[in-house]
């Protein structure tokens, strides 16, 4: 590996771009073009750097975390600037860096006021999200985790649609309410560690080995799980999401759905489960129950939405339910499926939000009934939409299929009942997506405004092209993504399985083990 602090470069490159933007005097908006270009270059450079991470990443996963960096930050409390990635974080980091330029392009024309500030917030947001995925120190993680809220709050609140202020405030309060309790739990974990070992540490790897009394573990797990469940968002904590998604500008929705929801599910996999394995295993059935409720409920609510953006938002609730289900099942296939589903959902839902944005850029409406028959007017956009739609439904050969299939396969070996209900969600997702597609694109043109819509521009090709390519590539050759995460997932599953004997359950333990029966 190189001697460069590659991970730090990846994380802070967007911030460097934001600082550069501060130097541009753009008060009257005359340099919007320059600002946009600097932002795009910064985000593309970040993406290139993450590809370098992938290229240099040792797939065998001999070391649990790679590209590690450690610097003392607040030595008095053992807090370190400690970074490192395993396969799971690697893929999510690449996803983040992949979606950010796309998000920027998607608001290229939609955002016209205060472009410089918008760009700065987008870049800061990227740094914070990357930081969450790369932190190996609980304190550092929390700092990034909490900081994510600020740029997103401004992006929704300033550049959003009509009810943006309400949505922004709801978003930030809701997510904060969850995370502050996690902060207390983090402090609690650190103190238990201090009592047991006599020294302070927020180092994740160190804390993994901590023995926490069962009762305490339960409360800590609850605090972590609620924080993450709100972010995912898991039913019944999802009510902030439709508002935030609908009111956010396109770029905000893309990032929100594409990356930010994954912060929650990543947190479950990386922090909540391995830190408190016994409590996690005890709570897994409840989590899984909520997850299948989310899958079905999200799908049903999505079906009746008149607003395309809201429909996509509720479909996220449904799809993310799969991720939580896979995490709760906690075996090799299920967790691999969950991580894969995170990536797949990021690509396909990001794409769906881009398409809704493109349509509403043209017609300034997001209501399904204002469209109809536009296939004849904009054939290319229709084709691209069909592709992304199918990817989202989970057509075999596309990205959504692999994730949901693996999750259901893994969950089946744990408890088949969940799979039965979750399977319903798969069917429903085809119903609501195809029904929307039919109402928007097929039939006769009912509104004559729709006749003058222009087809895809070069910029829009640059958005949907990579997304479609990624959706297909992930479906056709999933091993490219499953392979890097394999050792990482294996370690997490193993770490939790060690605690299996503590579990009070009437099922034979072997049923959850990963070896073939």
């Amino acid at each position, binding site marked *: 590996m190189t001697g460069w602090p590659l991970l730090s470069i990846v994380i802070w490159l967007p911030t460097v771009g934001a600082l550069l933007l501060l130097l541009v005097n753009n008060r009257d908006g005359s340099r919007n073009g320059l600002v946009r270009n600097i932002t795009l270059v910064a985000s593309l450079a970040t993406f290139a750097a993450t590809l370098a991470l992938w290229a240099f990443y040792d797939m065998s996963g001999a070391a649990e975390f790679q590209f590690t960096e450690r610097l003392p930050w607040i030595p008095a409390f053992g807090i370190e600037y400690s970074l490192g990635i395993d396969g799971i974080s690697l893929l999510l980091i690449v996803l983040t860096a992949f979606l950010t330029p796309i998000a920027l392009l998607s608001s290229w024309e939609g955002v016209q006021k205060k472009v410089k500030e918008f760009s700065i917030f987008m870049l800061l947001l990227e740094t914070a999200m990357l930081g969450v995925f790369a932190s190996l120190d609980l304190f550092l993680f929390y*700092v*990034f985790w*909490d900081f994510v809220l600020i740029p997103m709050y401004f992006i929704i*609140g300033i550049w959003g649609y009509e009810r943006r202020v309400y949505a922004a405030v709801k978003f930030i309060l809701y997510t904060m309410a969850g995370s502050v309790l996690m902060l*207390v739990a983090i*402090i609690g974990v650190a103190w238990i560690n201090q009592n047991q070992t006599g020294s302070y540490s927020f180092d994740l790897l160190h804390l993994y080995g901590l023995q926490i009394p069962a009762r305490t573990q339960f409360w800590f797990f609850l605090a972590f799980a609620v924080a993450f469940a709100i972010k995912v968002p898991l039913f019944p904590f999802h009510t902030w999401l439709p508002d935030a998604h609908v009111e956010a500008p396109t770029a905000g929705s893309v990032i929100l759905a594409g990356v930010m929801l994954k912060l929650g599910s990543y947190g479950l996999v990386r922090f909540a489960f391995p830190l408190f394995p016994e409590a996690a295993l005890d709570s897994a059935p409840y989590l899984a129950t909520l997850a299948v409720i989310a899958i079905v409920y999200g799908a049903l609510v999505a079906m009746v939405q008149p607003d395309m953006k809201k429909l996509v938002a509720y479909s996220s609730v449904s799809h993310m339910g799969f991720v939580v289900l896979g995490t709760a099942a906690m075996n090799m296939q299920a967790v691999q499926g969950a991580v894969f589903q995170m990536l797949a959902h990021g690509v396909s839902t990001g794409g769906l939000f881009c398409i809704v944005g493109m349509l509403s850029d043209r017609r300034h409406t997001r209501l399904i009934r204002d469209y109809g028959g536009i296939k004849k007017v904009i054939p290319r956009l229709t084709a691209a939409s069909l592709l992304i739609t199918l990817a989202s439904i989970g057509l075999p050969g596309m990205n959504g299929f692999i994730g949901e299939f693996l999750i259901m396969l893994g969950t089946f070996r744990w408890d088949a009942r969940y799979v039965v209900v979750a399977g319903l969600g798969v069917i429903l997702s085809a119903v609501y997506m195809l029904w929307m597609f039919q109402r928007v694109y097929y039939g006769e043109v009912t509104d004559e405004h729709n006749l003058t819509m222009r087809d895809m521009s070069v910029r829009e090709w640059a958005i949907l092209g990579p997304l479609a390519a990624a959706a297909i590539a992930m479906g056709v050759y999933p091993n490219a993504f499953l392979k890097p995460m394999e050792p990482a997932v294996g370690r997490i599953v193993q770490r939790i399985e060690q605690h299996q004997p503590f579990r009070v359950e009437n099922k034979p333990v072997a049923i959850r083990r990963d070896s073939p029966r």
Partner: protein
Amino acid sequence: MTLSTFDAVIPVICVSLAGLVVMLAESFRGRNERMPIGGLAVIGLVGAAIATVLLWDRNATSFGVVTADNFALFVNLVLIAVGLLTVFFSSQTIERDRLPAGEYYALVLFSVVGMMLMVQATDLLLLFLALETMSIAVYVLTGIRRDQPASTEAAFKYFLLGAFASAFFLYGIAFIYGVTGSTNLDRVGSVIAAQSMSGNPMILLAVGLLIVGFGFKIAAVPFHMWSPDAYEGAPAVVTGFMSTGVKAAAVAGFARVFLSALEPMIGEWAPVLWVVAAATMILGTVLGVAQTSLKRMLAYSSIAHGGYLLVGLVAGNDVGKAAILYYLAAYAVTNIGAFGVIALLGSRDRANDDLRDYAGLWHSQPALATLMTIFLLSLGGFPPTAGFVAKWYIFSAAVASGYYWLAIIGVVSSVVSVFFYLRVVVMMYMSERDARPLPAPLSRVALAALALSVLAILYLGIVPTQIISIAQASVSTIF
């Protein structure tokens, strides 16, 4: 008696001298002569800061009643910073509001003297004198705009209730003297410890009375009634000054008395303060939500912050003591900055402190709005600002002593407080501008001071190591 006897009071002397010089300068000033009176105040405060730094680690004492241990010096530096920032912000408002510069600065300096002595006092009687010196100067400052009835009313209320609380405090000292035969903190502490007096009703009464006295100065619930009125009526700069300086001095004095002399009775007073801290955090934030005047909102917010500080006191461990120091530093630079912005946006006739007055501020004054945002985010405890590290520190202390519920009440109320801090942000960024006159050109000194506060906030928030280790070192020498 050698010269070194005076060591511990040198910083206080510097500020006192500056106060006297400022008063004299004002009386010799010609009718229309412009005099850099603020500059004289700055010289005095900087001198005090230098003296404070030089006294570091020396543990000097004077006359057996004043100490210059690191704990006191740390708080003194915070107080000096508060004084300096107050002077910088005042440069604009004094001219705008036609305030008597000499009297104004002299009062600021004398109250700083009182605050510093309050922190350094190791004798309850001196503590009382210092508290009165500080309070009387602040009462007058509150009502310094004699042409405004609201200001006068606020000062009068503050004075009456303050005098009442001082009486409680003095009464408490009397009881302590009656039981232990001394007002010296060390002596009181050793007598209480030696005779295991914790059950003695007299001493319990004394502790209760002292809690009332300190609680009043910190504006802890239920002794907070005066503060919204006083904070709203006083000129914004003065509000910033008293919401940080008075609070810092009172909390430091509180900590010294309760964690040294009354430490043996922690089992008795900690549950009481637990309730007070919880009530203060909850009520401060809940009432803050309902406010439409920014000054009043920040008044309730600073009540809540007093509650957070009390959490550190309840925790009573080394982490808590250091956390109090860190929190004081973080809170002081943040809160005074926020009030500085309010002061700059006011005009002679109108305070412009209604929430509506901030509508669209981002469009008319982007720099000021950005600064205000950082102050508010820090008050709300967002990373990477000072407020986040400070809150984390305080709650760590609570958790370390097993006060999980206090920590939970603290974090939840801080989420609620975010709601009203964000209301200001929403106004500044997400509302269209109302037609209203632009404020006069902003003074460069004041802007520089604001920028300085923001730098301090980011420094404390991003690289807190140094200040944390200084704070830790400061508490290890005493208690």
